[in-house]
């Protein structure tokens, strides 16, 4: 009979490192810690890849192709390298990784507080306390939806959803839907709801426009080859701004079709500017839509030039189709600035306005005046505290599954060195144990 993991690992106690969260990043860190023989445990509030099981809409697929999905010592080996994983595929992938590395995961263990104690930390959970010398925050960048303040002024007749609570169009009544936000989620949800026969208005602020396929290859292949995904946080001009960049307008469909604002306009979605307020039941939109579209078109043009230059420098081989340029984003007539939600029977607003991590249980003074975690490329501003998976944390790819590997290799080395300097070394203890 297989012994339960609960028997192999005590419910609580002392350990060198506590990793909080058994998603791809926490497990990748677990693998690197194991390689360094660092005693650790991975605490998970639910099951492995929990948010992929419970907090994703039904049709969601990764923005990265399958061939790109890899974790330390592990890669996609399926039959469809150019496809895109569904949420349940991601669960299988991460679950498979957890089994492959034999990660010491304690599932159904919710962390309720982390406080500094002595030269380490005390991690309280709903299943006992852990004492440790280092903590890795791997609970993800998407803990809480970042909903604009305007949401509070919505009339009661309107249902507000986020990508965490939206599942599929059948949960909506047949009224119109305002989708706020034009990143990957906003565009995908606007598209899906429009196709379900409902009227959709999309509020568009700053966004990143990308074709799904460029010169015959997935855009992610180019971003990887040109080195854009590997750009480091300490090399870009303005990291604060770079970290705020929303996810690119991409969708992972079997047709590998480009999903951009022009495609949505053709399907009948109405574009308006950024949502700036709701007053007396009227949603108000910024008059800046044209400039936001122009900026995204200009950024796309610069990216494609950079890609073409790279291709030229690499012999413009027959593998690459000829360069392409895409029609500029059409903003038709005068986009509306006010919409009376009740009069136009808008009964749902979906806020696809991004997320922020939830560190409400972290009682260590490591937050700036705006409540953001202070860290230098994942090395948090307190000894022995690390974070993973935040947007552009160490590299542009940090928040992607394939972005975890480089980050955890570097951060586990930093963590290891810190433990050695601090003394009481884990290595001898492990060796005798």
């Amino acid at each position: 009979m297989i012994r339960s993991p609960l028997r192999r690992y005590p419910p609580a106690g002392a350990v060198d490192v506590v990793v909080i969260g058994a998603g791809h990043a926490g497990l990748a860190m677990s693998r690197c810690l194991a390689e360094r023989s660092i005693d650790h445990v991975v605490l998970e509030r639910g099951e492995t890849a929990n948010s992929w099981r419970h907090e994703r809409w039904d049709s969601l697929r990764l923005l990265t192709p399958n061939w790109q999905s890899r974790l330390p010592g592990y890669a996609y080996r399926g039959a469809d390298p150019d496809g895109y994983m569904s949420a349940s595929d991601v669960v299988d992938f991460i679950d498979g990784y957890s089994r492959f590395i034999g990660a010491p995961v304690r599932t159904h263990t919710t962390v309720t507080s982390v406080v500094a104690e002595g030269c380490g930390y005390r991690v309280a959970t709903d299943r006992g306390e852990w004492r440790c010398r280092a903590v890795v925050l791997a609970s993800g960048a998407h803990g809480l939806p970042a909903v604009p303040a305007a949401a509070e002024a919505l009339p009661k007749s309107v249902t507000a959803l986020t990508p965490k609570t939206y599942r599929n169009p059948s949960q909506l009544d047949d009224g119109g839907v305002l989708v706020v936000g034009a990143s990957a989620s906003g565009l995908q949800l606007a598209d899906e709801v429009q196709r379900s026969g409902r009227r959709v208005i999309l509020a568009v602020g700053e966004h990143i426009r990308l074709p799904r396929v460029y010169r015959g290859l997935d855009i992610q292949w180019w971003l990887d080859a040109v080195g854009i995904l590997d750009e480091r946080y300490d090399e870009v001009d303005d990291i604060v701004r770079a970290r705020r960049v929303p996810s690119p307008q991409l969708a992972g469909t079997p047709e590998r079709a480009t999903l951009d604002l022009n495609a949505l306009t053709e399907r009948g979605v109405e574009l308006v500017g950024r949502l700036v307020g709701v007053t007396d039941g009227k949603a108000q939109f910024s008059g800046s839509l044209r400039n936001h579209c122009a900026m995204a078109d200009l950024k796309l043009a610069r990216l494609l030039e950079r890609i073409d230059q790279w291709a030229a420098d690499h012999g413009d081989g027959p593998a690459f189709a000829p360069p392409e340029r895409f029609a500029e984003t059409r903003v038709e007539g005068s986009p509306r600035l006010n919409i009376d939600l009740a009069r136009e029977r808008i009964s749902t607003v979906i806020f696809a306005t991004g997320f922020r991590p939830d560190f409400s249980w972290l009682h260590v003074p490591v937050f700036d005046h705006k409540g953001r975690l202070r860290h230098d490329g994942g090395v948090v501003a307190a000894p022995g505290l690390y974070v993973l998976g935040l947007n552009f944390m160490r590299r542009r790819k940090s928040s992607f599954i394939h972005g975890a590997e480089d980050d955890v290799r570097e951060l586990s080395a930093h963590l290891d060195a810190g433990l050695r300097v601090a003394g009481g070394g884990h290595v001898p203890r492990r060796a005798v144990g």
Partner: protein
Amino acid sequence: MNITAIKADNGVNVEALLSARQALTEAPEGARFKWRATCEWVSGTHSRSVVHGFFGLGAEQSHKTAFRYDADHPELFAADDNGATPVEYVLVALASCLTAGIATVAQNRNIQLRSVKATLEAGMDLQGILGIDSEVRNGFDGIKVIFEIDADATDQEIAALVAQSQRRSAVFDILTNPTNVAVEVR
């Protein structure tokens, strides 16, 4: 032959702006400014506004001199036309804000400007302010700005300058997003 990096000079002290940005990041209370104007009625639709003092960097500040602006309406409104109309001042504000932004962004990107000319036009249906049709708003139904820019840069770089100047413009923001306005009588 000596090869020296060509440094653009648009007369903008970008280093000072960048160090101010750094300083105000560390001391955000200094970034809270108050802009002020006073206005006195002269006669008819003619008024004169004065701009002199403002508050910023935690203290009272002032312009080198008090600037005066006459506003009125043209003769076809049966007025004396002693100055631009208030709505034309809005166009002046937008044009000068975007132009200042273009010069600053160009300097920061090391782009030498030779000429920058903006032409603005705003549509307005007077049925709004005259109360003829309540469906028509008082203000502009739209603003069109056309820039003609001569600079040591590609068309795309110039387009990016203009886009970035809108992104960072206070007046563009004021015009494109709602602002609470409180008018009281003392």
